[in-house]
């Protein structure tokens, strides 16, 4: 079978905190899977468990059908970026990649390839201690790509990137997925995953909240609502409410309508001679869809443990 990540029934407890509470999901090849949840939801713990750094109390985490510990050439199977700050400050970026390459029996030529791919060519000869967070993220990406693996797992790769870097990262993630790789990307900010993730695994308190495609999630959150722009807001709301729709004012000249489709709204307003400038199907942002989804789990945000709890 194709190499992917399969997580089944993961449980792990740190002291009094149940970090993972029966988490199950699978990452498919050929798409970017967003791994989202508030800080402390268990994303980093799950990723550490997948690469065998943290032992779980229960459950299994497999990569390509095998526990990570038993993989040969692990970096050729999974490329992981877990902590971009995990660098020896006095070692150059290139030498950091070089020892990693040597550990996999790879040579300096492969190091130069991934430096190029990550856009680090000018910084690679400098000491990593002087890198900006954005450069560290690029170095982490280069390290993850070193073994040219079919599975990539990146923990908060957008952190510290400038707008140009965010655009670059989105494009890179899409192109890696387009090559048929399984790409799991964690984030606590849904907006970062806009335009890159096509699937979402949403967790909260170590439990699965949703495992859904982005298209389905946005459609469900959008519902059949229609956005209306009109200079006669009060009249328009009266007419539409009279026709049985649920109407909500969202601004001085905007109204959201549900219960009527857009063509019925155009006809009704025309018959009543109410002026309007725009009628469009309302489309929720990914952020809105996520907020909708986690509305009932949001209350623990305040009390949750920080993500890097140790």
């Amino acid at each position, binding site marked *: 079978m*194709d*190499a*992917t990540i399969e997580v089944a029934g993961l449980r792990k407890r740190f002291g009094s905190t149940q970090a993972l509470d029966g988490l199950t999901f699978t990452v*498919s*090849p*050929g*798409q970017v899977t967003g791994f989202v949840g508030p800080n402390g939801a268990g994303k980093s713990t799950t990723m*550490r468990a997948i*690469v*065998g*750094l*943290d*032992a779980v109390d229960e459950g299994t985490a497999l990569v390509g059908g095998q526990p*990570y*510990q*038993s*993989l*040969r*050439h*692990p*970096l*050729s199977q999974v490329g*992981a970026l*877990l*902590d971009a*700050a*995990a*660098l*020896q*400050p*006095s*070692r*150059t970026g290139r*030498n*950091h990649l*070089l*020892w*990693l*390459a*040597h*550990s*996999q*029996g*790879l*040579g300096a030529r*492969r190091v130069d390839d991934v430096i190029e791919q990550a856009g680090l060519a000018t910084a690679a000869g400098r000491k990593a201690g002087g890198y900006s967070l954005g450069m560290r993220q690029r170095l982490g990406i280069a*390290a993850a790509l070193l*073994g*040219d*693996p*079919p599975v990539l797992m990146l923990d908060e790769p957008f952190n510290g990137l400038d707008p140009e870097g965010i655009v670059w990262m989105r494009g890179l993630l899409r192109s890696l997925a387009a*090559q*048929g*790789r*399984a790409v799991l990307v964690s984030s606590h900010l849904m907006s970062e995953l806009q335009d890159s993730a096509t699937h979402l695994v949403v967790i909260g308190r170590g439990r699965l909240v949703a495992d859904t495609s982005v298209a389905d999630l946005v459609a469900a959150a959008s519902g059949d609502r229609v956005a209306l722009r009109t200079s006669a807001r009060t009249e328009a709301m009266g007419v539409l409410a009279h026709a049985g729709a649920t109407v909500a004012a969202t601004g001085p000249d905007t109204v959201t309508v549900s219960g009527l489709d857009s063509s019925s709204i155009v006809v009704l307003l025309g018959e009543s001679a109410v002026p309007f400038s725009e009628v469009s199907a309302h489309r929720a942002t990914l952020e809105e869809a996520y907020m909708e989804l986690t509305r009932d789990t949001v209350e623990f945000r305040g009390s949750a443990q920080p993500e890097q709890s140790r």
Partner: protein
Amino acid sequence: MTITGYRSPLPVGDDGFPSQVRAEWTKFRTVRGWVVGLLTAAVVTVLVSLLGATGSGRSCRHGCTGPVGPGGEAVVDAFSFVHQPLTGDGSITVRVTSLKGGTDTGLEPWAKAGLIVKASTAQGSAYAAVMLTGGHGVRMQWDYIHDKAGSTSPPASPRWLRLTRSGATLTGSESADGAHWTAIGTSRLAGLPSTVQVGMFVTSPDHVETAVHFGGSSSIGGPSSATAGFDQVGVQGQGGPWTGGLVGGGGGPAARPGSSSFHQAGGTFTISGSGDIAPAVGGLGTNTVDRSLVGAFAGLMVMIVLGAMFITAEYRRGLIRTTLTASPRRGRVLAAKALVLGGIAFVAALAASALAFWLVGGLRRSKGDYSLPVSTLTEMRVVVGTAGILAVTAVLALAVGSILRRSAGAVTAVVVLTVLPYILAVASVLPAAPAQWLLRVTPAAAFAIQQSIPEYPQVSTLYTPANGYFPLAPWLGFGVLCAWTAAALALAVVLLRRRDA
């Protein structure tokens, strides 16, 4: 699933143990601070050793060169000798009627009176002897380092002794009555000339009194003398007339000029003597070659820091997670680290200890200082063993660093275990007994490998760490350090596997 997964066109590399070793070597050499640290350890070893040699302005109490025995070792060879030549095979028999000490110090336990067959009267020449001692009964000794016990006859009662030469073989015997003889031992003296000197000898080693107190021990002492009576002298073989004299008299070690005399009245001889016929031992006022490497403990401290940092730096930065992701078999990671660290530490330390040994030797010669000579094999053991101590201790620090995950804790623990006991013991801070205990059980026992002069039961001196004597044999002491390191590595592997990274 319609989407086919990604297949890399790259050939897969070999991630076996050699690749892990190579990765750790790349890690080490790409951090300039670590390479500088390694060189610092080497430089500090050489400089502190040189400083030790410059500071010690010892005068040559025993003369700037001493006699050397047939085995190449330094010896003490000073005694009163009443002798005649003997050509070819033969034997000499005598009755020792009494053995008494001088009036000032009494009878030394290792005062000796008896018969000797010696290649010549030159100091350091080959010999075999049977003797009555002040406190150790009858002995047969030959070529300085060999000692074999006979009966426990006390010095007060008369004892018959006989020494027989047959070619290169010498046989010592004793008897209570001159009729019933018991063999003590046999020795082969290679290269013994056909004409040798045979006769009666008396000697008595330095008197040493040791006061042990907290903060160290001190010893006082000086030359002693002994007087013995002989009768019933019989020589079989081609001999000659008796001559009396001193071997190593005048400037010889421990000799008291003028303290030798002999009287012959009829068949009775009375001989007084002072000195010893024995291997030279280290101690106060004597330089040994191991003192050339006193700087090793300074280099050791740098190596400990380096060894601990090699893994604790990874914990501090979280880099250990990257390492264990690249190489999930954790025991192998630690093995690769230990191999790389131990290897480079050994190479650097070997260069440093060889250089220090060579420089200090040259410095001493130019100052006219004298070190007790030892065999080349012993010199190599001291130099290579010192490098071994530094390398294995660096690995011990690595293991402790892996267990504690903190640099400060690991460095403190290993310095307290290794360097501190050594300094406490060797610098005479502690009395001899606790010092020796520390050098048996702590990794500092490894410094025994630097001991160049062995301990001889037939020579009384202060066999303490302060004088360069360790309670364990050289390789056994080194083995104690290796055992500690192996145990720490085993615990480190267990914990590395068990704990979350």
